[in-house]
């Protein structure tokens, strides 16, 4: 064993390594001169978001759109409005802004995008990029931690034709966006998502690890309870929420190096009644929202 270790040390001696992260970003086209930086970043973001759109939006929606005959080359999705600020806040001294913007393709296919930025002065001038069914993906230069976009099924849309799409006010676990590890700049790990407009609060719960039988964590330190804020995005009656991840969950991610999404997400109205639900182990299908009964105590 020692012979191999010594040999590998000889093969690649411990050399003085000097970090040069700015050079990595330059290579990636993520920064440079102010004008060039913006152009390249948008170009890169177009590529990144397009890739995201293909994987996250086009694939699951293709079957649904084909089934419902939604797709028409003449009706590519387009942004409905520029990103808006849903709410602002501060976590451990880190100011954050939750943004969202809507898009739509045709009368039956809609998209909603949202994200968190820690930038003090986020540039929210979204630039339309190539769209996909339901979600017109746009570059948002001010948002560094990613933007999630998805077509909304199970969220009531006031322009929808009754009977053509589900109208149950529930939502799916895929309507989440998270930065599950602490950012390099010390930004806290966080999670954000969208919920039906009737839900004023959201409760996120994770499953206990290695618990048999499976059970949900119940300690106040391990459960996220957060208010949901109305989002004035055209065409949607939704609320969005954002919260820092509980330390035990963030620590789990750091130690296991794997992000674990919540196993149960419950939206409640002002009277505490369950009005939205997503629970793993149940069908997560874009045309079949989780039944509300799954989240009832």
């Amino acid at each position, binding site marked *: 064993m020692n012979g191999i270790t010594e040999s590998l040390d000889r093969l690649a001696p411990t050399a003085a390594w000097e970090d040069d992260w700015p050079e990595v970003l330059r290579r990636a086209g993520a920064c440079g001169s102010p004008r060039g930086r913006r152009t390249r970043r948008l170009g890169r973001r177009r590529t990144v978001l397009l890739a995201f759109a293909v994987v996250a939006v086009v694939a699951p929606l293709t079957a649904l759109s084909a089934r419902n005959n939604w797709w028409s080359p003449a009706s590519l999705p387009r942004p409905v409005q520029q990103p808006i600020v849903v709410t602002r806040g501060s976590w451990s001294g880190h100011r954050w802004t939750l943004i969202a913007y809507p898009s739509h393709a045709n009368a039956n296919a809609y998209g909603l995008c949202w994200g968190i930025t820690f930038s003090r002065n986020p540039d929210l001038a979204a630039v339309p990029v190539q769209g996909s069914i339901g979600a017109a993906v746009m570059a948002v230069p001010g948002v560094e931690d990613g933007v*999630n976009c998805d077509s909304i099924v199970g969220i009531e849309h006031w322009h929808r034709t009754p009977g053509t799409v589900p109208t149950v006010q529930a939502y799916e676990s895929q309507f989440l966006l998270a930065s599950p590890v602490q950012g390099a700049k010390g930004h806290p790990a966080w999670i954000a998502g969208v919920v039906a407009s009737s839900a004023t609060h959201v409760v996120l719960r994770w499953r206990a690890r290695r618990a048999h039988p499976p059970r949900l964590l119940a300690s106040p330190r391990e459960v996220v309870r957060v208010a949901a804020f109305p989002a004035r995005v055209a065409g949607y009656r939704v609320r969005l929420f954002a919260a820092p991840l509980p330390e035990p969950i963030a620590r789990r991610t750091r130690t296991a190096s794997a992000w674990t999404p919540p196993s149960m997400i419950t939206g409640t109205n002002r009277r505490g009644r369950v009005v939205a639900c997503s629970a793993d182990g149940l069908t997560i299908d874009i045309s079949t929202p989780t039944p509300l009964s799954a989240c009832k105590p």
Partner: protein
Amino acid sequence: MGSVGASVGEIEEVYRRRASGFFRLAYAHTGGADTARDAVQEGFANAVRGRASFRREGPIDAWVARCVINAAVDAARNREEVSAILEDEESAELSVDGDVMALRTAIRDLPTRQRDALFLRYYLDFDYAAIAAALGIEVGTVSATLHAARTSLRGSLQEVYR
């Protein structure tokens, strides 16, 4: 879907923590410090460019490792092609140390999976789960892969140092 993609901040965090280890991995692949540094920078740049494709199905370190390994393999290939035509400075330096050249040959003769597993284990101290995620293999096969690599390399080293 949950969350999709890695943030630039997450990739930078891996860079700050592991770049020196990745440098050694790339050095072992390429045989030259400058080429290895270039491969690490390019690998991380590729990770930044492709961060939306990270599916969070394993640790981000493993996903980034895949990017750096690919960059190092490309760099090594280019370096060999160039060296075949021009004897650059680094190649001349390497040729002085015959043992290292023999060692490099022994390593290169290992199956790719065994070599990568060995590098990830020794230079980056990856655990078996991370190695499995980086190489796209089952965790249960990592131990056997490393064992086979060590056995094979030990045999080659006996030849080198005999």
